[in-house]
Structures are given as structure tokens and as C-alpha cells.
């Protein structure tokens, strides 16, 4: 994973960043070797928030294990649940009603927006600007309210079931989302004036943390990190699920490969998600919100794999079924783990400030890295 542990010469400082540190966004532990201000080596140490989610899933039924995954990448819990529901549907060949698919996509895109908003605010904090955080949370709060109305909770929604969604949309859903869209559109330009156009911010981002498309692929990066290096990898386009193929949206690609490109990809994805929501909002098909399924789900013997695009990249769910009530083995391929592994490559030889800023643009969620 890491190229090699850099040699330590006299005068080098070895610093433990984390597990308690303001910029690691959780319990990530980085051992960094410094020569003055220059970073010589970055070595992530994992395991501080390992909860053996994969093992836990093996003792839960196919209906139950979906909800443990909300605790992996807690900022895109809807999408995690969706991935698990999809793998069960694939195994049992369940047809998901169109209405349920539309609801899933709406929720997933709202989640993606909420996640990107939080990332934008946190990136601001990483580069030393505190104000964006509060502005981002103002908009994110509205999404959380929408989620609370329909799903009952604000962060770990647990809304997906095999064959559809748990309950129908709240009657106010469309009205609330429209209010959010109006509000968001009036604010998105403010984001550009406050952060994107700022000369200090651009200097902190441009040409920093560069990774080429080839290197990013070999590290297994996915999502906005890989797309910022000019590689097409959006699962919503490559292997559409839940009716993404019927929607008009653009896969956001930037070719810069630096922190600024990663920043732009996410900012443009916010607008793409907004356009997906706008397309679907007034055209939610009538019908059932859940397919009729048996009370006890027993997939046939075999191996099943699905992948979805979360806010951070590609989430793969691999299930081995022995035909029993519970999965024999479950493995998650989480985007954060691979993206983190490229951190050393991106930041070698840069300054401490760049390390923090680059880590911010990777959009790491630590419980997603350590399952």
C-alpha cells in the first residue's frame, strides 16, 4: 500500500497526527516524518474504530444486515443501505417497483448533496477558514429535516429494504425539497465568492496533492478523487442501478489531478445531483413503494456482487451465500480505504499545510476506512 517507509535521518521529526487531532475528522492516526516543514513520509495507522461490521453482518439475516452498514460511511448511509438492498435483490431476483427506484435515487442524491456540503465546510476548516462550515451546515440542516420527515431519523436513515423502501414518502416531501432547491440555488454562488474565487484558497489548492490518472487507478482510488485525474469511473454511468440510466446527468470529469480539481469535481457534482433531483421530483411514478417479498429471505447458494457510487466513490458489496438465513461471508470494498492509501503519494515532499489540505480534498470518513 505504501511505497516504502522513508528513511529517517538525523534532524527529522516524527509526529503522530491523531488519533485525536482537529484535521483528521475522526480517529485516523497518521505517523508523519518531517524535515523542517517538509513532509517526508506519511504512514496511516488504522484500527481505532474497527467494529468488525463484516463479521457482525454474517450473523444477521438478509433483512437485518443492511442497517449495520449505515454505521460505515455515516455521511452516505442511504447509499450504503441501497448497495446492500441491491445485492439481496440481485440474489433473489426481486423486481423493484419504479416508484421505489425513484424514491431511492432521490434519497441517494439528497444524501450525496448533504455529504458534499459537509465536506465543503470541513475542507474550509482544514485550510483555516471557519465560516464556510456554518454556511454549509445551514443548507445541510434542510436536507436533514427532509430525511427526518420521511425516514424518521436524520443521519442513519435505515430506509431501504430488499425490494424497495421502508415507507412511502411524506406528503410534504416534494414541497420541502422544492424549498430546499430554491434556497440552495440562491446560496451556491455565495460558496464561490466565499471560497472558490478566493486567491489564498486557490493558491492552497492549485498544483497541490497531484496524482495522475494512472497512479490513482493503481492505488484503487474511486469517485471524485479518480474523476479529478481525468478517469471516467462513475458507477451511475458505468453500471447503472435503480434507474440511473433513464436520467439525464453529466459525469463530472476534471483533468487537473490536484486538490483544486478534486474540489471542482465535488462542487460540480452538487449541481448535477441537484439536476437529478429536479428531474425526478415532479415525475415520481405512481405505484408501490415496495415489492412483495417473502417474509424470510433465503438467497440461493452462490456469490453476489453489486457496486454503487457513494459520495466518496465506489462501494462494493460482496456476498457469499450458502443458501441459509444469514450470509456466509460479506466483504465491503469501501472507497475511503483506497483513497487514503494514495495520500502518501500525493503529499510526499509537500508542506504540513498541504498534507492537511490534501487530506481534506480526499473527503475521508474514518468509520468507512475502518469497518
Amino acid at each position: 500500500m505504501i511505497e516504502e517507509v522513508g528513511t529517517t535521518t538525523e534532524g527529522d521529526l516524527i509526529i503522530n497526527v491523531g488519533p485525536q487531532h482537529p484535521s483528521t475528522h475522526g480517529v485516523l492516526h497518521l505517523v508523519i516524518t518531517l524535515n523542517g516543514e517538509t513532509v517526508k513520509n506519511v504512514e496511516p495507522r488504522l484500527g481505532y474504530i474497527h467494529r468488525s461490521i463484516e463479521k457482525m453482518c454474517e450473523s444477521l439475516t438478509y433483512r437485518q444486515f443492511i442497517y449495520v452498514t449505515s454505521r460505515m460511511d455515516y455521511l452516505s448511509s442511504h447509499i450504503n443501505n441501497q448497495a446492500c438492498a441491491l445485492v439481496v435483490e440481485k440474489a433473489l431476483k426481486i423486481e423493484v417497483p419504479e416508484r421505489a427506484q425513484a424514491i431511492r435515487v432521490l434519497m441517494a442524491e439528497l444524501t450525496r448533496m448533504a455529504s458534499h456540503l459537509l465536506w465543503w465546510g470541513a475542507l474550509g476548516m482544514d485550510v483555516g477558514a471557519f465560516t464556510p462550515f456554518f454556511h454549509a451546515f445551514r443548507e445541510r440542516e434542510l436536507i436533514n429535516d427532509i430525511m427526518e420527515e420521511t425516514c424518521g431519523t436524520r443521519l442513519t436513515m435505515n430506509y431501504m429494504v430488499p425490494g424497495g423502501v421502508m415507507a412511502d414518502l411524506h406528503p410534504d416531501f416534494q414541497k420541502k425539497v422544492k424549498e430546499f432547491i430554491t434556497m440552495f440555488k440562491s446560496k451556491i454562488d455565495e460558496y464561490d465568492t466565499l471560497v472558490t474565487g478566493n486567491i489564498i484558497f486557490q493558491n492552497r489548492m492549485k498544483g497541490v496533492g497531484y496524482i495522475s490518472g494512472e497512479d490513482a487507478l493503481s492505488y484503487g482510488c474511486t469517485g471524485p478523487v479518480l474523476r479529478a485525474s481525468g478517469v471516467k469511473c462513475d458507477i451511475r454511468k458505468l453500471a447503472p442501478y435503480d434507474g440511473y440510466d433513464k436520467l439525464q446527468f453529466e459525469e463530472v470529469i476534471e483533468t487537473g489531478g490536484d486538490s483544486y480539481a478534486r474540489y471542482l469535481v465535488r462542487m460540480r457534482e452538487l449541481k448535477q445531483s441537484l439536476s437529478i433531483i429536479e428531474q425526478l421530483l415532479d415525475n415520481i411514478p405512481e405505484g408501490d413503494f415496495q415489492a412483495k417479498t417473502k417474509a424470510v429471505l433465503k438467497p440461493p447458494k452462490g456469490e453476489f456482487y453489486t457496486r454503487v457510487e457513494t459520495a466518496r466513490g465506489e462501494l462494493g458489496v460482496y456476498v457469499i451465500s450458502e443458501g441459509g438465513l444469514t450470509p456466509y461471508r460479506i466483504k465491503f470494498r469501501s472507497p475511503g480505504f483506497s483513497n487514503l492509501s494514495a495520500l502518501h503519494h500525493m503529499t510526499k515532499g509537500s508542506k504540513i499545510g498541504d498534507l492537511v489540505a490534501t487530506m481534506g480534498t480526499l473527503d475521508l470518513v474514518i468509520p468507512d476506512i475502518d469497518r
Partner: protein
Amino acid sequence: MLSLENLTHTIDQALNRSFGPTTVLLVEMAMLSLFAIALFAVLGLVLVFMERKVSAYMQIRLGPNRVGYKGLAQTAADTLKLVIKEGLTPDSADKFLFNLAPFVVMIVAMLLLAPIAFAKGCQMWDMNIGVLYITAVSSVSVIGILMAGWASNNKYSLIGAMRSGAQIVSYELSAGLSIISMIVLTGSLQLSTIITSQQDGWWIFKGHIPAVISFVIFMIAVTAETNRAPFDMAEAESELTAGFHTEYSGMRFAFFFLAEYVNIFVVCAIAATIYFGGWMPFHIGHWEAFNHIMDFIPSVVWFTGKTFALIFLIMWFRWTFPRLRVDQLLNLEWKYLLPIGMFNLLLTTAIAILGWYF
């Protein structure tokens, strides 16, 4: 007219009538040092409160609004909490230097209050080299910061302190150069003379282009010198947790904290004095009637108004801008501000010789 000059004169005469000159000097010094300490505390509390309110309104929050009337007692309550909090000294720290550092920083901040003219006739020490004194004393605070960073025996503190050293030493040049270019115009280092020279208009108007350039450079340089965002490399929360004061807790942390705000006040007061006439009301040339109306506003209001407007500007920087990287910070100084400052000094000198100012 409301003037503090009469008050100080009365006290001075009353003391002189009853005691000998040495005793009078000692009593007056004691009074002034009490005044400086009180001012230090009050300024710290007021500015921390102001910062919290300013940041709150920029961040769509309300800020402190529970303790006391409109939350005014919040900072006092916080300080009280810090006073009764245990001040830890790390085992591996150099105990003497560790405990000394906050006092160095605090005493420097208090010393800087001495030559500032708060109102007409309200100045602790009107020395003839006032501006030089301020530039000299303010550079001592870097020793306190280096001491704190080194003695803490913490790697974050050390990096923070070294950054701070590089930064303060660099930016002092620009701050000094921009002051010197104004001294060329005023022809005096004494603050009271600088203020009276602005009788017919503030230097920012009288000195037009070079004065504006010098003012902009001065504001950037002092923001860096006081370790404020976007130049808060020494603290850099997201990089170094708390920089040079990572290991400090309780009142010793509060000393650093309050000293930072008092330093902001001092540099803004200097900027207000040199560029905006200090306590001098807004006068335009020989418009006697207009000038007379302006004189009705007490001089202390003019001084605090100007100073707090500049403080607001510095707070505005902090809550809008991201932080610079350490090499960008030094590039900005050595490649841009310093050459521009030197050129500006030449320009000002030429203008002063040719008399092309108002």
C-alpha cells in the same frame, strides 16, 4: 470641551503640592501601571467578546447571549473559569522558561500601551521616540513565543514557535518600512507631534497614494505580526492543534490569549494614530466651521472609533480568509510586500522633498 488633560493636570498638581518630586513620580508610575493592568484586562475581555460576536454574525449564529446583559459577562466568566483552572506544567518541560513565557508576552503587550494617546492629553508616556519604541518593544514578544514553544518540549509547539519566529521577524520589516515612509512625511517620531501634524487633515488623505499603499502594507504586516488569520501559522489549528501554546492551560493560556488581543488593539491604535490622526477629529484644510463642528465629538470617541473600525477589519480578515501556507507566507513578504514597501519609501521621500502632499 470635555478633555482629560485637565483631569491629569489636576491630579499632578494636587500630588505636587503635598509630596516631593520623587514621591510624586513613584506614585504616578504606580497609578499608571495599575491603569495599564486594568486596561490590559478590560481590552482583552472586550475584544474577545467583540471577536465572538463578529464571528457569530458572519457565521449566521448568535454568539454569546446568556451570561449577563446580552452575554456581555461571558468573557469575564470564561476568564474566571480559566483563573480557577489548574495550570499544568508538563513533566518534560523546561519549567522555568515554560512559566516565564506567558509573562514575557503579557508584559510586552502592556508596555506597548504606554505611548498610545487614547484621547487629547491622555497618554501615559509621550516620549520623543514613540514610534521607534513601539517597533522595538513589539519585536520582543517573539522571544516569549519562541520560549513557550521550545520549553513546552512538544513537537507541535516547536514547529509553531519556529514558524512564528520566521514570520514575525520577516513582517516586522514591512511594518517598519511602512511606518518609516509616514515618518518621512510627519518628520517626527513622537506620537503627539504626529497627531498634531494632522490638524488640517489625516495623513491617509494628505499623503494620498503613498500613504494608502503604506497603510495597506502596514495592515497586512501587523495582521501577520500579531499571528492573526490568515497568517496564524503559529497556531494553525488544523495543522498544529494549537501551535506554541498547545501545552498551556488555565491562566497561563489566558495570558497568551489576552495578550494577542491587546496586541491587536495596539497595532490598530498605531495605525489609527499614524494614518487616521489618532484622537484628532476629522478636519478638512481650512474649513473652520466644519472643523469646529467636528471638534464637538470628544477626542476619545474619535480614537476608539477609528481603532475599533480597524480591529473589525482584522477580525473580518480572520473570518473570511483561509490560511496561507508557510512558504507562501514568506514569499508574500519577501517577494511582494518588502519590494513594494521600499519603492513606496522612495516615492514618499520624493513627494516629501517636492512638497507634493497636502
